[in-house]
């Protein structure tokens, strides 16, 4: 497994020098976590922050593990079949955005993973050696807010690379 790219700065380095290190690391490989609804807002902001290609973009959609589909007492689909269906559907939704980014000169890969969202995002960033994670911050009320916030806090707290957090609502367009 590749080690996550953690920026190391020598003691005594100036802010300008450290800045150049950050800049170089952030621009190499970016993990973009797209929510299942396929909100494109983080991509618009990412393009604005990066200022354009070249960068390797890895578009990731994380779903919770499925338990299969049961109708009455019969199992209609096993977990892996249900996951394949969701994977196909999600990849189809991501493909127009990926095609657009490819046209603009980015290297783009799309992936769908199943598992605990926070841990999966951090593990994927680790495996890819991502220099930047882009994340949608979801809003809601009550337990939904608490649950969504928990995942995002986990990523923001444990990530060892910069995280660009974009709110789904309440922010102006990129």
């Amino acid at each position, binding site marked *: 497994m590749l080690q996550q790219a*953690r*920026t*190391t*700065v*020598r*003691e*005594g380095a100036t*802010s*300008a*020098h*450290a*800045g*150049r*290190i*950050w*800049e170089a690391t*952030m621009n190499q490989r970016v993990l973009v976590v797209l929510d299942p609804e396929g909100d494109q807002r983080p991509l618009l*902001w990412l*393009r*604005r*922050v990066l*200022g*354009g290609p070249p960068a390797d973009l890895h578009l990731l959609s994380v779903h919770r593990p499925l338990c299969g589909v049961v109708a009455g007492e019969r199992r209609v689909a096993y977990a892996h079949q249900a996951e394949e269906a969701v994977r196909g559907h999600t990849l189809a939704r991501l493909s127009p955005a990926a095609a657009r980014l490819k*046209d*603009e000169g980015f290297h783009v890969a799309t992936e769908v993973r199943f598992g605990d969202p926070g841990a999966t995002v951090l593990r994927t960033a680790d495996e890819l050696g991502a220099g930047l994670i882009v994340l949608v*911050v979801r*809003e809601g009320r009550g337990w939904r807010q608490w649950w969504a*916030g928990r995942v*995002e*806090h986990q990523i*923001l*707290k444990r*990530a*060892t*690379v*910069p*995280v*660009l*957090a*974009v*709110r789904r609502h*309440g*922010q*102006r367009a*990129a």
Partner: protein
Amino acid sequence: MKIKVAMKSPVATVEPGATAAQAETLLAAAETRGLPVVEGRRLVGMVYRRDLLRLQPSTVPALARYELAYGPSRLCVRDVMRSEVVAVAPDADVQEAARMLSGREAEALPVVDGGEVVGLLGIHELLTVLVPELERRWPPRLRRVLAAVGTSDRTPPALPAALALARRHRARLILLHVLPPLRRGLAAELGQDVLDRIVDQRCADARQWLAASVPEGLEATVAVTEGDEAAEVVATAARDAVDLIVADAATARTIAHEAPCPVLAVPAWRTTHASR
């Protein structure tokens, strides 16, 4: 750029004798805003989505009863189509089509070559080619970057990242340092004059330290304030209409859900000693 590069082709067409309901189904399947109406191969009109929407019965039940006779399934395309249609040639420039679309109610223009409909150029197709062109001319960039420089230590991780971004985007950098408020009751112990001097000294120290961190040639504003860090950062970002907040991970966690712009959370960096 020529229209033939940007147009949608092949394009679905409808005959004048078809019902409006059929045209509506075709429009939904073709995912376009308009359908060319053809007789044989000759273009005789255009039917647009907004025209078909007007045919829907009223939502008031008493009125809808009288409108059923004129519903989409009873009316023919020839009854609702627009006969005065302006078509464009495939070799014309997209600018010409954009000008025509901007001045008309039409949402899509038929592309005709030798009397035959070969494509359709709608607002969507037009924007698909014009947006990259606009972005090439005016690349998207950050105009104002706010660096929330924390109070915890004097080597804030957000500062280098913010400097790098501001330099790359030629953005105005706002360096904000929020000092934690002094203990309550201190004014009674020390006296207000002494306290004011302490506060002024703290602000001056912080301002001097931050100003020294800004390299030459960068447009930067240094702001030092006292209070709750998260609230001050959010308020400054909203007031100065910044495009990006750069903050350390701990601050970012507290402001990510209420910030008026995206937040770049920078983790604490790992320091190595040159001697090792």
